[in-house]
């Protein structure tokens, strides 16, 4: 009824190619952006920022990054945790070496450094693929974590091997450290997420994205029609690691404030982000958001319902959480292997025809 293209005339190619071709959808998107930027910062408190919104925003950036590599380019990676650690440690070294530089620049540079490291570890992908590549990236995961644990230069020779985010600002507003206001940290991450999503969306529908998808669908055929696999694979690794690095830097500097590499950026993190994109939907920007939201919010909601309302013992709630999240993942994979993004697509198709499906 309201969700349809009838009457929404496109008069140029630009209009025709836009991300949200349906007027209703477009307005919905504007509303979401307006609420996220214009309303939430005024309502936010520490709990909402630190328990829900920051992890969601940061994981969404990481998921977008991994989705470029796995979902769009078809290169399976289990090194996300390690690459996030590169972003975090790069950011830490930059923050402590150049205290007067804006956090924006530190985070972007951290992403750039991670992109270089990602390209290095992406080199094996030129020779190997599938499970074998997964194992190679797994090696990256373990090597990077080991490196940050082993070489004291990375943690500025502190006694415990922890890195702590000192207080840094952007245009005089404190972004990191305990005195950072919730709205500032939230907006800082939100800006990065919004820009990342925009860049990723436009990368994936342009030439670069098409060559990634060609490699994903059949690399030999792609090579025959003139896609350079070296360029396609390495750009995918670079773009992916760039976003993952930004996520790692934000995760350390803005969200946690103190990081111990083995605990925070272990193999668990790689799997978590991989689950996010599988549940959210491979090869979809919306899927990265949906997957991150699902895996960040669900445990908190279950905890609030189980422990705070029903007053169940916390250990039972924690165990139930594992059971429920696990069961939901299995259910999703059976009922909708293409993830939440596909559910959303189907819902939109249905909405288009509603209320006259025939």
């Amino acid at each position, binding site marked *: 009824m309201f969700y349809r293209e009838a009457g929404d005339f496109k008069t140029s190619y630009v209009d025709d190619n836009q991300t949200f071709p349906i007027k209703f959808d477009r307005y919905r998107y504007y509303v979401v952006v307006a609420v996220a930027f214009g309303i939430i910062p005024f309502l936010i408190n520490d709990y909402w920022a630190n328990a829900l919104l920051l992890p969601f925003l940061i994981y969404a950036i990481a998921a977008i990054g991994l989705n470029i590599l796995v979902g769009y380019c078809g290169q399976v990676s289990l090194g996300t945790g390690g690459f996030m650690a590169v972003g975090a440690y790069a950011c830490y070294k930059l923050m402590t070496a150049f205290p007067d530089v804006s956090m924006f620049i530190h985070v972007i540079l951290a992403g750039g450094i991670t992109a270089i490291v990602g390209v290095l570890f992406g080199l094996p992908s030129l020779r190997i693929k599938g499970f074998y590549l997964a194992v190679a990236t797994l090696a990256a995961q373990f090597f990077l974590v080991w490196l940050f644990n082993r070489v004291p230069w990375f943690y500025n020779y502190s006694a415990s091997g922890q890195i702590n985010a000192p207080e840094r600002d952007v245009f005089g507003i404190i972004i990191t450290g305990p005195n950072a206001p919730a709205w500032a940290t939230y907006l800082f991450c939100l800006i990065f997420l919004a820009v990342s999503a925009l860049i990723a969306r436009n990368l994936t529908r342009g030439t670069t994205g098409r060559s990634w998808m060609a490699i994903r669908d059949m690399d030999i055929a792609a090579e025959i029609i003139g896609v350079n696999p070296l360029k396609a694979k390495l750009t995918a690794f670079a773009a992916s690691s760039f976003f993952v690095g930004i996520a790692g830097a934000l995760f350390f500097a803005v969200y946690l404030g103190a990081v111990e590499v083995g605990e925070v950026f272990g193999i668990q993190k790689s799997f978590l982000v991989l689950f996010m994109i599988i549940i959210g939907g491979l090869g979809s920007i919306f899927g990265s958001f949906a997957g991150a939201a699902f895996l960040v919010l669900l445990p908190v909601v279950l905890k609030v319902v189980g422990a705070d309302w029903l007053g169940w013992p*916390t250990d039972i709630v924690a165990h139930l959480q594992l059971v429920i999240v696990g069961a939901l993942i299995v259910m999703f994979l059976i009922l909708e292997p293409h993830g939440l993004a596909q559910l959303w697509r189907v819902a939109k198709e249905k909405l288009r025809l509603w209320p006259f499906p025939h």
Partner: protein
Amino acid sequence: MKLKLATAALSALMAAGPALADLVIPDLSYRTGPYAAGGIPFSDGYNDYFTMLNERDGGIGGVPIRVVECETGYNTEKGVECYESTKGEGALVYQPLSTGITYQLIPKVTADNIPLHTMGYGRTSAKNGDVFSHTFNYPANYWDGASGAINYLLEENGGDLSGKKIALIYHNSAYGKEPIRTLEELSKKHGFELAALPVDHPGQEQKSQWLQIRRDRPDYVLMWGWGVMNQVAVQEAANIRFPMENFIGIWWSGSENDVVPAGEAANGYKALTFHNVGTDFPVFDDLQQYVVDAGKAAGAGDQVGTVLYNRGLYAAVLAAEAIKKAQELSGNADITPAEMRDGMEALEMTEAKMADLGLPNFGPTFSVSCTNHGGDALVGVTQWDAANKTWSLISDFKPTDGEVIGALIDEDSAAYASENNLEGRCN
């Protein structure tokens, strides 16, 4: 919808919190995950003591205590969530029982003006209250532990450790790395040779480390382990027939969980401690009467008297004493977190006070001051008797090498202060 309801419930809780006039103690416990075996007894002891105070005395100073438990699973992200969700309820003191979460909370609690008590864990240099205004780690810290172990070995060797080889097997994390610097200093001072062997989380894989120990034949092995790592280490030590009486664990590597799996072979294993073991104290009669028999015990109620239960109990005792002190100082029964902090800073535990509480010689005597947030650093040693399945205190609480540790603490806390632009506040 769920989320909206959750918010509604949360804000309702937050609104209702302060009006009820109770002393809110958050318990960031971990009853799940790889470290649950250590987290459960500690949390049970912590909860049970407060339950007993509520049942027996009606709280502290007439105000009931409300313990809010939050499951962290020893995970820093969940720890942050727990902290944020409980701090709004007027939480008086945090006890995260995790060095990783402690590092995260140190700046946060300082900004939010809530005290943090990390008893025998966390950041050692937090002992310097001049820099760390809201963090307390009395009665003892890791560097005291390291020095306590070396002092004990000195005593055993007639005051001379030169030429001896000591290996440190440690959890490769912030926690495990803490003692290395102190041990290095001590090795210079006493002339022993130190070899540090890291074990990665969670610690099931230690074959190569113990192979190295077997090859290098150190005279003593010290261990900084937690969770499953401890059991595996004790088992591996037994496998290579390392003499158990030369194997000393830190207090987090000295509970029943760690030695029972190895059976007879673990006999003679030693561990450091800063509190007494067993149930031979009058307070346990009250616990039995008001908590266990009344069916109000936390968890399964089967942990009473284990080492970590006693540690949780001791943590609760110290928190309760600090609350009493804070009530006395401020004149309010329903104290605020800021008053709690002042109470902790003025805390003094004497032998008479401990006896009054039904815990004679349960812990060392110590006092806290503005510059000293770590107490008097007295460390004892316990030993495991596999036949009777009991720990016993074999060396009483003795002073540690304040000279070496003090210098290191000054150095590390000065680094923290300059990193964070902090000024000393105790002049």
